[in-house]
């Protein structure tokens, strides 16, 4: 009988297509919008991913997220180095500076100054050049997206990307490109430029304090969380292990920006529209077939069987719609992978969208089930 229930559904082409379209649309919107949201959130912590060496990030106690740098004095570094459990601690500069291109254009850049001696904090993937070249005079490494886009020599035409050997000015000081790296895109989509810590201080505007972060490695056997706690206790600075620092940053964006609300509304709209379209079409399908369900009932089909038939039909279209919707969203993500669009489709988004579409199916079948349970089986005798 369940095979017949599916045939009843599938062979009613117009309604079947209508229900599947509604659910596909809902699934697509939910997955696509949520993936963009996740992508955006991951961009906010991209730099933490790109800097895998330290176990603990130390910063001023007023810092709220990674781009909210509040400079500390260099002496803080020595205090941290003196704490038990610290294997090493190195300085990191992070700031937004103006770069002037040959064309005369100005671009804001995310300047990262990594420890001059160890180069800890340098980009993990080099596409051209060598990290060691950062020790050359005036050397900078530029991320490939920035080199090809905003820092291209003829921006906004973008036909002449920045390459090794090109010279630009950062804050009126000479900077020579010695490498092109791959770095996570930043939330504000600014180009990322790496140099050494000492050179970064040279590029940065003259301020009394310039140390943005202290990157700390825990000694073997010491838990990063415990070490972070003891650094905070002993210095009054904020200290987080990588995971907590990621959440600090993401929490800030969730709490203080309209991003989650905007995307949440889109996801909710997808859910509501999907429920409305699929629910109404499915309910109409049940109404149109009420006489046949009543015929089954008259012929001896128990109510539990009719309920299962309805649920099977509902979850069948849910499954197909979910598959099409997430498939379309995946293709969308694949096609836009080299664009500005942030799109990260995770396994738990698949699971969440499946749950959402399952809920839509359940809501759609709810009204139909009510109708079936209340139907008057004697309608079979009405002409």
């Amino acid at each position: 009988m369940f095979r017949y229930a599916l045939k009843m559904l599938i062979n009613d082409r117009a309604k079947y297509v209508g229900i599947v379209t509604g659910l596909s649309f809902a699934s697509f919107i939910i997955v696509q919008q949520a993936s963009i949201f996740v992508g955006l959130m991951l961009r906010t912590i991209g730099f933490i991913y790109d800097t895998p060496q330290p176990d603990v990030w130390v910063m001023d106690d007023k810092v709220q997220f990674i781009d909210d740098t509040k400079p500390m004095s260099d002496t803080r570094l020595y205090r941290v180095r003196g704490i038990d459990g610290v294997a090493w601690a190195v300085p990191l500069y992070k700031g937004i500076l103006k770069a002037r291109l040959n064309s005369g254009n100005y671009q804001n850049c995310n300047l990262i100054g990594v420890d001059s001696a160890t180069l800890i904090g340098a980009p993990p993937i080099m596409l051209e050049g060598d990290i060691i070249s950062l020790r050359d005079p005036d050397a900078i490494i530029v991320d490939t997206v920035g080199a090809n886009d905003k820092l291209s020599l003829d921006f906004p035409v973008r036909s002449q990307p920045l390459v090794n050997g090109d010279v630009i000015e950062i804050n009126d000081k000479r900077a020579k490109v010695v490498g092109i790296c791959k770095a996570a895109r930043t939330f504000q989509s600014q180009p990322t430029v790496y140099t050494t810590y000492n050179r970064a201080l040279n590029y940065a505007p003259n301020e009394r304090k310039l140390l943005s972060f202290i990157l700390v490695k825990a000694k073997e056997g010491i838990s990063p969380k415990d070490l972070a706690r003891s650094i905070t206790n002993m210095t009054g600075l904020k200290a987080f292990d990588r995971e907590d620092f990621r959440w600090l940053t993401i929490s800030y964006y969730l709490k203080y920006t309209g991003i989650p609300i905007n995307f949440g509304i889109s996801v909710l709209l997808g859910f509501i529209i999907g429920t409305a379209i699929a629910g109404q079409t499915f309910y109409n399908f049940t109404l149109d077939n009420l006489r046949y369900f009543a015929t089954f009932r008259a012929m001896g089909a128990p109510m539990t069987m009719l309920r299962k038939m309805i649920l099977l039909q509902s979850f069948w279209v849910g499954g197909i719609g979910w598959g099409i919707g997430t498939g379309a969203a995946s293709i969308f993500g694949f096609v836009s992978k080299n664009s500005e669009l942030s799109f990260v489709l995770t396994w738990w988004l698949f699971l969440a969208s499946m749950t959402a579409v399952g809920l839509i199916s359940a809501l759609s079948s709810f009204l139909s089930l009510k109708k079936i349970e209340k139907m008057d089986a004697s309608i079979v005798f009405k002409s």
Partner: protein
Amino acid sequence: MEAIRCEKLFKTYGSGANAVHAVKGVDLVVNTGELLLIVGPSGSGKTTLISVIAGILPYEEGVCNVFGKEYRAMDEEEKTRFRKTNIGFVFQSFNLIPMLTATENVAVPLLLNGIESVEAETRAKTLLTELDLSDKLQTSPKELSGGQQQRLAIARGYIHEPRLIVCDEPTAYLDHKTGDMVMEILKKKVLNKDRAIIVVTHDPRIFSYADRILEMEDGQLVEKEKRVPLPQSS
């Protein structure tokens, strides 16, 4: 053998001033091997009476005993199980499912009775072949003529060997010749000594097939002299 016994059967729709007494104290006995016609004007309560006899509608008073089972002693699911094995239906508007093939439509009662789908569809095909529908096995009912649809509906009504078949206006949408063919099938193929058939009809052309005719008037049954219409010239 006694198939149906109704005593002082009452069925009312609504209540108070809006109450409509559709069946008023009906007494009825139907035996197996009998083809009973119930005739009467629209609104006289014929369909309500067969709905009650088929266990689809509940009744307020009296007795409705079908093959020794009293409906009032059963809950809804028990009545459903009883219908599944004991009652077959032939509806005025066929109620065939257009999304299924002819074979699948006929196989439904067997599937409900727990027969495997392969076996059920094989038996359905055999029966449809017997009813001269062998070339329509995979056809949707909506592509069949009225007569073919009614034969399909009859096949569905008795494929599971029920002991009672309830037919509601089975010839209403059919021309005289096709109506005759349908009644021939009911009388000669479907009816047997262990089975009773009740046919509700307006159609005087089929009176000749009845073993007995009862007339329903204003919710009550009146024995009607069996009238056989003159044979039509061919």
